[in-house]
């Protein structure tokens, strides 16, 4: 059959193509471009091949920062996910307290990152901060500016305070969508509270939990503002995460090539870790697709 061939159809995809090009392809290709070149200013560039990538991957600085990122994300996820589920489980399902709880939970999410950083930075100061001063009076030697453990604890606390709500809200949405009949059926079966959680609630919120997990992983892996505001990456290099290191190189030292190479590596890591998580988690507890029935 002869299909009419009309080149004008291309015009219809041009707007989308232009948008994607401007927002994603061009910026990324610029970074790719930088990562293979060297410059001495004056807008003159020289081909550098894979030199920057080799530099980045062989530097201790990169591996240390990467290690800190993973450690931070693991700690954040292992606190926020269980805590979020726990809070969501205790929230009321109906009644006048529902909006109160939801608004209270949503409040931290509305506060910008650097404000959160500033709030806690002041809150933790031993001279004028309520937390720092109280701890000091109680005889605890708390100082995020000089003690590595204190700096980490403060950043983790900030993140937990700021983002646990996201996990709570997602889990809560999943929990309220479970039909009441499931709980009745479990009650008639004589199932324990734990069984109800393990065999009804957890499987039913698996979908939103995957989303919460991925969002919190990506966000925590890209941690920047909080340590930057709190200590600028210190004490020493102890809270210099990859993004902080990247900014130091790109803006502080204006090493565009290494910074570009590093950000590409950084992005690939985030992408591949998310891909692995997503594949693993969406396959947990699901039968293989070839076992499906068609009736």
């Amino acid at each position, binding site marked *: 059959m002869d299909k009419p061939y009309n080149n004008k159809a291309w015009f219809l995809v041009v707007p989308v193509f232009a948008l994607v090009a401007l927002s994603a392809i061009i910026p990324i290709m610029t970074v790719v471009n930088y990562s293979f070149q060297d410059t001495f200013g004056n807008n003159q560039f020289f081909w550098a091949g894979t030199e920057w990538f080799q530099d980045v991957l062989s530097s201790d600085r990169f591996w240390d920062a990467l290690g800190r990122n993973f450690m931070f994300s693991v700690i954040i996820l292992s606190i926020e996910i269980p805590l979020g589920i726990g809070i969501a489980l205790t929230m009321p399902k109906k009644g006048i307290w529902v909006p109160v709880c939801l608004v209270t939970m949503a409040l931290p999410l509305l506060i910008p990152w650097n404000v959160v950083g500033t709030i806690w930075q002041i809150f933790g100061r031993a001279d004028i901060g309520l937390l720092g001063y109280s701890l000091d009076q109680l005889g605890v030697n708390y100082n995020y500016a000089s003690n590595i453990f204190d700096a980490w604890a403060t950043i983790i606390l900030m993140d937990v305070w700021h983002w646990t709500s996201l996990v709570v809200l997602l889990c809560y949405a999943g929990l309220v969508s479970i*039909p009441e*009949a*499931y709980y*009745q*059926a479990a*009650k*008639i*079966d*004589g*199932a324990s509270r734990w*069984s109800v959680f393990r*065999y*009804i609630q*957890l*499987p*039913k919120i698996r979908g939103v939990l995957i989303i919460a997990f991925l969002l919190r992983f990506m966000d925590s892996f890209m941690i920047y503002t909080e340590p930057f505001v709190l200590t600028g990456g210190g004490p020493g290099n102890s809270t210099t995460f990859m993004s902080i290191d990247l900014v130091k190189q790109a803006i502080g030292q204006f090493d565009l090539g290494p910074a570009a190479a590093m950000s590409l590596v950084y992005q690939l890591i985030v992408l591949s870790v998310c891909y692995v998580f997503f594949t693993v988690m969406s396959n947990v*507890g*699901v*039968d293989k697709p070839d*076992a*499906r*029935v068609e*009736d």
Partner: protein
Amino acid sequence: MLELKNISKKVGNALHISDVSMSLEKGSVNVLLGPTLSGKTSLMRLMAGLDRPTSGSILMNGSNVVGMPVQKRNVAMVYQQFINYPAMTVYENIASPMRVAGVDQATIDRRVNEAADLMKLTPYLDRTPANLSGGQQQRTALARALVKNAELVLLDEPLANLDYKLREELRVELPKIFAETGAVFVYATTEPQEALLLGGKTATLCEGRVTQFDRTIDVYNHPSDLLTAQTFSDPPMNVLPVTKVGNEFVFETSRVDVPTNVSGLADGNYKIGVRPHHMLLEEPKGHSMKLDCVVSTTEITGSESFIHLQSRGAHMVALMHGVHRVEIGDAIPAYLEQKSFFIFDHHENLVSAPTFDSQN
């Protein structure tokens, strides 16, 4: 045996169940028939022990079980939605009540296989519910209820979400399977046809009241009042307000002789109920009341046609076999056969039922 004695349930100011008394025998099939929101589910929740009645008592084999927690009552319940444990295989789902009860593995194995066999689930024992069709999911839930060997089995519109063919199949099998376990079997439905097919006894519910509880056939043939008759008729029973004057029932200009068996009735206002399939478009032999009607709608399903008629403010439905060619707005006569009259007095209580029960 399960006995309900003057059960009422109030939620806030709303009376969900109002003074219900009934006694359900072991190994019997009991149908709760009523429209949506008539209290079927509320009554089942009370029977199960999920809710506490506001007043009245519930006796299981003679002992009062009000206040006894549901998990100690040996009750099984199946819902309109397909409720299974999402992360467990079909096998584990069926086994779950026995696991809670601490039954040994060999017995669990035997009973799961028996139940799976009855419910035709044997090939799917290793699957999770998400990988089953709707019918298989519901059969899993039914199998779980079956292995429990419960004294009281409550099925709340279990087939409502299944396709037509599966419903017919299960409708026949379910009462047999559960009756063999000796359980008190209670089945809630909105469909009069389903009640007739299940047989046993039927309780018709309306706004939280049981209007009648008797053998299903008897409730159908001798509804105690108009409300029961309307609940147990789909499409709804045609009701015509008439006046008895001497030896005749009169509606506007139409009249018919009063049946001989009720000739002794006092003059006054009555209501005549006629099921849609006894409303005829051709004049029958024997006595009938002729009404001049106007066709307002027709619904044709192929083997049957529903013809909606208006006659001086009365709305009627005639059920005809086959496809009938009538146009909306046509003026046609309709005939109500005298021998198919349900006659209700002004309190809407049944005075007389049709005399040809067995042909219904």
